[in-house]
């Protein structure tokens, strides 16, 4: 048992015998109790291998290789709520709790929130993730539901923009494929394939649990470990997640998407070299690059005021996504002049690459980042998600703060190398002919 403490927060950390990690954060005075189970399995895992005799698939050496249709991790997440007698959603409702799940490119998470019956909810959550129940009929029905989810995202400009940016940046890496898959790919999903993926990834050694609430952190962590020891399946082994060799250059320098929006959107991305499995290195890069992007394009930067007052953008979204096998920086905005905005952003990058970062800007950005970091501990969902993801690279939410505290100006300036024009791609999402085929029809019907 390890207990991590900083600025009045306490997180207890332990491992169950089957290898599953457990984190418990004490939140004195909170009414809500919360638990999350995260599996290291996401949309990027379209192909994998496992040395498991019960596996079906094509044999490659001592391993068995399995290829799956895009979108299967997300489909599996939906179907994990099916139980032999109804839906786990209803069972959580019966306990007065609510539940949800999320699939990303690299992980899938299951969560519940409750104010009482925490033990029973936890039992249900564990039952849900370890005891799948799929039928031909339920898989067929889910295809219709997910098709509507896919088209819902097709109508969301920021989803389309993010998707197009990844498609432009990546040539072969599966991050370029949509998390939900396509209407065609999800039609290929069968109960057998779902069982195969579940057996491969939903193993204690490949999962982590996070709980938070008005608990004594250490006592609760011990209790959760006991529950896991008595109920969890064997540790198993982690599957080998297949990632093709990705060249450093983007696939396409630009993509233009047309859709029914009120004004153009722009996303500018720079593909970065991934940090690999060195968690500390990845964290330092992430924090330094976030600071850099905020210094260059945040609201206190001169370029932001220039773009805002010039009517080019009213907000600039900046992000740096860092995983062991892929990383990229992005600047996103809504603008009336996409070309001009792109030009201004690149001009600012060019100036910074030549003249560096003023020390006063660095100190101010770091001070602000520290304040924002501390307040994140009020957001249980965000802390849980961050902790579960950091666990898989050997770090935790407090080490994030430690790195932030001692990051240097030099490290931030070194990250200017990410914003290299050779690794740049951009997406313009522009309005189709607005209103050209829109109209309103109104009628009044007798009461029903």
């Amino acid at each position, binding site marked *: 048992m390890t207990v991590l403490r900083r*600025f*009045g927060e306490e997180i207890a950390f332990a491992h169950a015998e089957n290898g599953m990690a457990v984190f418990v954060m004490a939140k004195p*005075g*909170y*009414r809500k109790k919360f638990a999350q189970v995260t599996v290291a399995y996401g949309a990027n895992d379209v192909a994998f291998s496992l040395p498991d005799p019960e596996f079906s698939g094509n044999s490659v050496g001592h391993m068995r290789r399995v290829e799956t249709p895009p979108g299967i991790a997300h489909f599996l997440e939906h179907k994990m709520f099916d139980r032999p007698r109804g839906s786990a959603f*209803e069972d*959580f*409702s*019966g306990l*007065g*709790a*609510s539940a949800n799940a999320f699939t990303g490119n690299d992980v899938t998470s299951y969560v519940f*929130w409750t*104010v009482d019956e925490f033990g029973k909810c936890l039992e249900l959550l564990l039952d849900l993730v370890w005891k799948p129940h799929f039928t031909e009929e339920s898989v067929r*029905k*889910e295809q219709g*539901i*997910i098709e*509507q*989810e896919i*088209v*819902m995202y*097709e*109508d*969301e400009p920021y989803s389309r923009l993010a998707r197009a940016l990844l498609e432009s940046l990546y040539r072969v890496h599966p991050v370029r494929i949509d998390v939900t898959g396509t209407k065609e790919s999800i039609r290929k999903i069968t109960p057998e394939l779902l069982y195969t993926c579940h057996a491969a990834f939903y193993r204690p050694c490949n999962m982590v649990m996070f709980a938070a609430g008005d608990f004594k952190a250490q006592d609760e962590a011990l209790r959760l470990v006991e529950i896991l020891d008595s109920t969890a399946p064997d540790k198993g082994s982690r599957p080998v997640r297949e990632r093709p060799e990705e060249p450093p250059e983007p696939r396409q*320098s*630009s*993509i*233009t998407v*047309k859709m*029914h*929006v*009120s*004004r153009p959107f722009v996303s500018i991305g720079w593909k970065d070299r991934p940090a690999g499995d060195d968690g500390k290195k990845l964290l330092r890069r992430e924090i330094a690059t976030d600071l850099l992007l905020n210094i260059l394009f*945040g*609201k*206190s*930067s001169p370029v932001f*005021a220039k773009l*805002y007052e010039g009517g080019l953008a*009213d907000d600039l979204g900046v992000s740096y996504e860092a995983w062991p096998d892929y990383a990229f920086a992005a600047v996103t905005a*809504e603008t*009336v002049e996409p070309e001009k905005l792109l030009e201004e952003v690149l001009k600012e990058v060019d100036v910074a690459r030549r003249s560096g970062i003023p020390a006063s800007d660095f100190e101010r950005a770091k*001070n*602000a980042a520290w*304040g*924002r970091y*501390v*307040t994140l*501990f009020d957001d249980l969902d965000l802390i849980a998600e961050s902790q579960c993801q950091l666990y898989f690279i050997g770090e935790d939410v407090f080490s994030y703060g430690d790195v932030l505290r001692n990051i240097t100006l030099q490290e931030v300036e070194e990250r200017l190398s990410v914003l290299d024009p050779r690794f740049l791609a951009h997406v313009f999402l522009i309005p*189709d002919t607005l209103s*050209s*085929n*829109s*109209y*309103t029809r*109104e*009628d*009044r019907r007798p009461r*029903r």
Partner: protein
Amino acid sequence: MDRVADPEVLSSGPVETEESFASTDLQPGLTLRRLPVNRWKTASLTVVFRVPMRRETVTRLGLVPRLASRGTRELPGLTEMARFLDEHYGAKLRSNATKIGYCQILNFSVSFPTPSAIDPDSGSRGRWLVKKLLSFVWSCAVEPRLDQDGYPPDVFTHEREEQRRDIEAIVNSRPEYAMVRLMEVLSHGDPSGLPAWGSLSDLDEVGPVDTWEVWRKSASSSPVDIYVVGLEEDVLAEACSAHNWTFPAPREFRLESEIKRKPPAVPGEMIAVEDELPGAQTILCIAFYAGIDAAHSRFPALLMYNGVLGGFPHSKLFTEVREKASLAYFADTVINSWRGMVIATAGVQDERRKQAEELVVEQTRSIALGQVSEDELEKTRRGLLRRLMSQRDSPSSLIRRSLDWIVLGGPRTDEELARMLLRVTKEDVVEVAQESRPVAVYALRAVPSNASGRDAS
């Protein structure tokens, strides 16, 4: 399961809690509301002005929060304001116009790490931080950067155009656009039914001097609430006593602002409206009028009815429309507690929209026929009670709940509402269903775009 909110009023119940805000009247109509408990790392100071919706003021006042973020008398530019916030531990300024029932709500809020989270021994530095930020957020609200008798013309013109673009941009979120259109259909021109930003067509008429004049008078005559979360009583008391609560015009608080107003009349016959916009998914919204608002004694029964129909994953819409018929990814309901309505929304394939509409209406009929099991009822009751309790962990929810109660009335405490929910019977829920009737069906139909597609290089 995430869904767009009704831009007017959506809440599980306008109540205060046992840990409700401790109120102190600083002046007539100026109330300090401090949450006496603190379990958070984030402190916030939120200044809220409540102004009744009027056609002649709503569009101008809708611009005020935008203009507030462009500069104050002391910090006259974007960069100065942003740097000030960065230097105060990344404090965040949020200013916006929202709506609760008949009131336009103008919010100016600054959030920041609590002094003890930054440094347990912060002492005088913590007190200094709170004083500075209280002064800052008050200045944003009532001491904006001005040029003679109004906002600087260039800043005003810029913000007016940004406001226009933002309003036009609602179309970029189809569920939000559909909800706004449904409210428009239901309001048939009544100004109290306008959205918080007012009217797009009125934007051309507003200027920097008249907008400041409207705000100067409204700010000086409206009820103002200062919500404080996360600060020790002595720190706050010191900051408040040092602060000069000046208004931009002589304070003339009028109780008239507190008079409750009725929502727009409900249509006598059912209105069906369809818009067509290029896209992939049709959004269907159906408004059911129950005539039970937040202050009504049967409001808890409406909450239960909404929960049984579409408020949860065990509800009829989720199980029948999504899970059994596979018609939608989302199919749920929300309450508009001012208008006394339940609004169902679903994202569906265009060619199946009629089928979805029939299925939604069928669920309301089945409740009216008494087809509600004990299991459905109890799951709903437990879910509502959990939501009520969980909201105590969220300062923004507590502020919202307090404002809902001030504007709309209803049970004042969690305990009162909880007791009322525990007393709701199946017969009460069935009765609500029997009295509810569909009053508007709105469909934002998806049609193929003439020019959608993509080019690559």
